[in-house]
């Protein structure tokens, strides 16, 4: 090849032939590069489309899994198949693009070589332009340079300002610095679940009303009609009170102003459509559509219904998430209430019989509704609510069902201990005090179990077990000194907590009163709500001593809530707030 340096007029033709070859080489390289590039882009788009479709399908399947845990296996199979299909397709796309990249690199190299080569034949000779006023040009350049440096600084500042647009988030602001889940102190000042903190039914405030009369309105601070019925109990957080209700046409969550009784909002819970071949849920009148009590973490409220529909609303009534856990296989209808532990929403989802392996304890992230862990339970369907007990060895979720009482570690769902001691349709909720948990086998037995065991503690940690009449619905109450149980027909028994020694037995109902609401304790006084809506206030120790009877004038089956000098009672139709007049506050 001739270089332009030794180019003479005689070589012009040869040079132009070389030049043409160089141009042709560059052209071939360019055309080939464009074709390969187009193919690579096409392949990339194909891959992206495929990936987007796959991601969407996968996301739908994931949602379905959490919504239809019953079909988990089939859905997992489907995910596996999709995953394999996608991986194959993606590797084809990757192979194609890798080959394309090599080809593109090669063709671009040919193009660059061609064009550089062609350039050597057309080298521009230096042709300096006439020069004048170098000094003034330098001054002009200096001035422009100053402006351009300043402009660069301005541009950088403008970009930063643009990036700074948007909400200014101050992590130290009081509302931001608030706890993400309520502290035990906050919980103890509220009534965040069925029977309040730890499900104990004990009021933190001992200054509670001791007389009222629904008929005359004495002591009734407000009374509001609940739009839809439900057997669940009121839950109170700050100035908000929550309830749920349901009938065949709707499932609702209600938020009331706890100070004025005004209904603030109604949250609609969408019912999951029935799956093919699925029987519609049959709801017993005694249970109703909304037996489980809602729970709250102080920012959001969670509700579950007899259909397995679960929903979360924030305090303004905005629906956060909802899902369906699958229609529960439950003879009387699902009635276990919800519990919270830190950010976890705990659901005792017991179904079928002990053999059917359908029961589980589910922990969902309260914010997103995603399953954080779930533990299979070898128990039959139950109606009891789990409690989170603060034992000496740390928090334990304690659950009661037929036949096992099981304690779980709340963060992981790992089982801590289990005791085989119950039978039948377990509905009463366990309680915990002084290292002992107290559970009830309907009609026949009250059992105290030490909570410091590990593994199967049936033979080692049952502190005492009394074969005495025991309630089928009402949960026990105790303060570490005594345990009080109340049968539906009004037969009440009181035991010494430490060893189960019977302290007294009394027929409170005397044939006229029956009880569905669980007993509560205010200081050393029992508050026992009859089905007819009469609150019996009585001393529990040293022996039963009735102090007062307060009539509401409406039938009741939900357990009352005790917060801040007020008692909130849900009648079958109305919601009542009872307080001493001096505690009446302006909303």
């Amino acid at each position, binding site marked *: 090849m001739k270089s332009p340096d030794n180019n003479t007029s005689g070589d012009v033709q040869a040079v132009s032939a070389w030049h043409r070859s160089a141009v042709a080489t560059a052209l071939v390289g360019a055309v080939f590069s464009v074709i390969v590039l187009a193919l690579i882009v096409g392949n990339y788009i194909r891959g992206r489309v495929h990936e987007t479709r796959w991601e969407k399908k996968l996301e739908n399947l994931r949602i379905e899994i959490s919504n239809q845990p019953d079909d988990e296996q089939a859905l997992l199979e489907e995910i596996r198949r999709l995953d394999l299909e996608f991986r194959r397709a993606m590797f084809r796309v990757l192979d194609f*693009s890798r080959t394309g990249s*090599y080809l593109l690199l090669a063709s671009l190299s040919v193009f660059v070589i061609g064009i550089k080569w062609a350039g050597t034949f057309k080298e521009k000779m230096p042709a300096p332009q006439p020069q004048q006023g170098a000094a003034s040009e330098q001054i002009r350049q200096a001035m422009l340079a100053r402006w351009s440096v300043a402009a660069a600084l301005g541009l950088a500042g403008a970009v930063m300002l643009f990036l700074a647009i948007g909400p200014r988030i101050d992590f130290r602001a009081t509302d931001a610095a608030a706890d993400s889940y309520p502290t035990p102190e906050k919980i103890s000042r509220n009534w965040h679940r069925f029977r309040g903190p730890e499900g104990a039914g004990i009021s933190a405030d001992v200054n509670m009303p001791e007389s009222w009369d629904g008929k005359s309105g004495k002591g009734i601070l407000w009374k509001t009609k609940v739009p839809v019925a439900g057997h669940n109990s009121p839950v109170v957080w700050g100035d908000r009170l929550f309830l749920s209700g349901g009938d065949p046409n709707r499932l609702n969550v209600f938020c009331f102003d706890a100070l004025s009784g005004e209904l603030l909002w109604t949250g609609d819970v969408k019912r999951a459509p029935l799956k093919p071949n699925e029987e519609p849920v049959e709801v017993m009148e005694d249970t109703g559509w909304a037996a489980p009590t809602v729970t709250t973490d102080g920012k959001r409220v969670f509700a579950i219904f007899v259909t397995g529909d679960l929903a979360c609303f924030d305090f303004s009534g905005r629906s956060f998430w909802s899902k369906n856990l699958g229609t529960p296989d439950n003879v009387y209808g699902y009635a276990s209430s919800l519990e919270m532990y830190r950010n976890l929403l705990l659901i005792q989802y017991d179904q079928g019989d002990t053999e059917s392996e359908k029961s589980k304890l589910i922990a969902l992230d309260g914010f*997103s509704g995603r399953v954080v862990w779930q533990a299979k339970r070898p128990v039959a369907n139950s109606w009891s609510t789990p409690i989170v007990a603060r034992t000496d060895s740390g928090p334990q979720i304690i659950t009661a069902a037929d036949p096992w009482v099981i304690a779980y570690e709340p963060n992981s769902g790992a089982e801590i201990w289990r005791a085989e001691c119950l039978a039948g349709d377990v509905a009463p909720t366990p309680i915990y005090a002084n290292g002992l948990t107290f559970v009830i086998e309907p009609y026949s037995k009250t059992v105290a179990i030490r909570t410091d065991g590990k593994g199967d503690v049936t033979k080692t940690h049952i502190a005492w077990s009394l074969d005495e009449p025991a309630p089928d619905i009402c949960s026990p109450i105790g303060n570490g000194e005594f345990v009080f149980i109340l049968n539906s027909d009004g037969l009440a028994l009181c035991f010494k907590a430490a060893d189960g020694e019977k302290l007294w037995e009394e027929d409170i109902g005397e044939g006229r009163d029956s009880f569905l609401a669980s007993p509560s304790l205010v200081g050393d006084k029992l508050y026992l709500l009859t089905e007819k809506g009469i609150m019996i206030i009585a001393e529990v120790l040293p022996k039963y001593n009735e102090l007062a009877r307060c009539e509401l004038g409406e039938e009741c089956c939900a357990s009352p809530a005790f917060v801040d000098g007020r008692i909130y009672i849900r009648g079958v139709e109305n919601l009542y707030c009872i307080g001493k007049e001096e505690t009446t506050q302006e909303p």
Partner: protein
Amino acid sequence: MIRFGHIIIATAVVVNLCAVVSGRHGLPARENTAKIAAPQRFPPPEFESGYDLPPSPAAPHPRQSIYEYIDVAVLLAALILASYLVLKMRSRRAIFVLMVFSLVYFGFWRKGCVCPIGAIQNIVLSIFDRDYAVPITVSAFFLLPLIFTLFFGRVFCSAVCPLGAIQDLVLLRPVSVPDWLASGLRVFAYLYLGLAVLFAATGSAFLICRYDPFVSFFRLSGNLNILIIGACFLVVGLFIGRPYCRFFCPYGVILRQLSRLSRWRVTITPDECIGCRLCEDACPFGAIRKPADEWSATEYVRGKKTLALLILLLPVLILFCGWAGARFKNVTSRMHSTVRLAERIYLEEAGEVEGTTDASLAFRATGREVKDLYEEASGVRGQFAIGGWLLGGFMGLVIGVKLTAVSVWRQRTDYEADRAGCLACGRCFKHCPRERLRLSKKDKAIS
């Protein structure tokens, strides 16, 4: 005599040694960064399939570390050769061949990693994070080009850096960028360097690696956005010589300053400048300085006043930019994963965004207190406030010095390659008739 440059190099060596010995764990930087930065293309399935995933290698393959030493040896050899070709042989063609070799070896073969440009971050992080160790090879990659620049000018940029090489190769129709514009654009390189140091020091991100525009070409795969940025640089690079090198490269910023102090450097003419002006437009990078006329008395006085004003402005600029840098801590700190997560959680909690992200879900699954996360994020923001002061102050200093520097009259009688900006590409050599004379004499002597 001890030169100022030697002091700088000695300092850099000491800093490096400190960085190497300060790390407690001997994980090579590449592995560390890979662990931080490499998301799996296919994460393991989310269900039990009975298939045991083969364990990921915990330590790098021995061959890999041998390669790292080979890389250092090749780098050293390439730098020596480049110095010889630029300063002694003065052959553009030879420089070009070495440049193509470097592009193939450091770029396509070694996939653009380790590179001295990114090594800045390893060094910075190792200084601020005692748990992070810089392998000796990375330190060597960082230091060798600096040492060579201090002695021989920017020979690394001339024929060894693969990023420079790929841009040099695609330069087909050079268009000159006016000096004043180039001065302004160069500010971005300083800003890029400052941000890269800030993010590396706070353990937020390796900005230079994340936004390396050419690495996707070297690896023949990569993030689409980066590929597009790289393609834009190359398309612009068809007409504007090495745009990344001149206006963005953070390592180039350091090399520029060291090159000012270099003992030997590129000269356009092999012996004397005869003022023929034939080289005037030879440089596609605008690095040839013309002889300067003297200013008239009035212009001189006015220039002096401007200069005085600008010198007075310097501390104001430093303080103002430092203050502004600290004010932008909320923006800059978003580069840190903790702050990003905390902001996301904050917006989720406040109901200002719908749904969740994988990161926020993972955080919630830990059951950790949001308050703790906010606390941690506030702490990180505090670091960025200090970093913002330093970065802003640095930028104020750069701007102030630049404004001053462009306003100074410099006496020059010959055509010269700019000490800082010359990339030692060798294109201007043959434009000089003295060089042609030298070559023809040499040819004659050989024949």
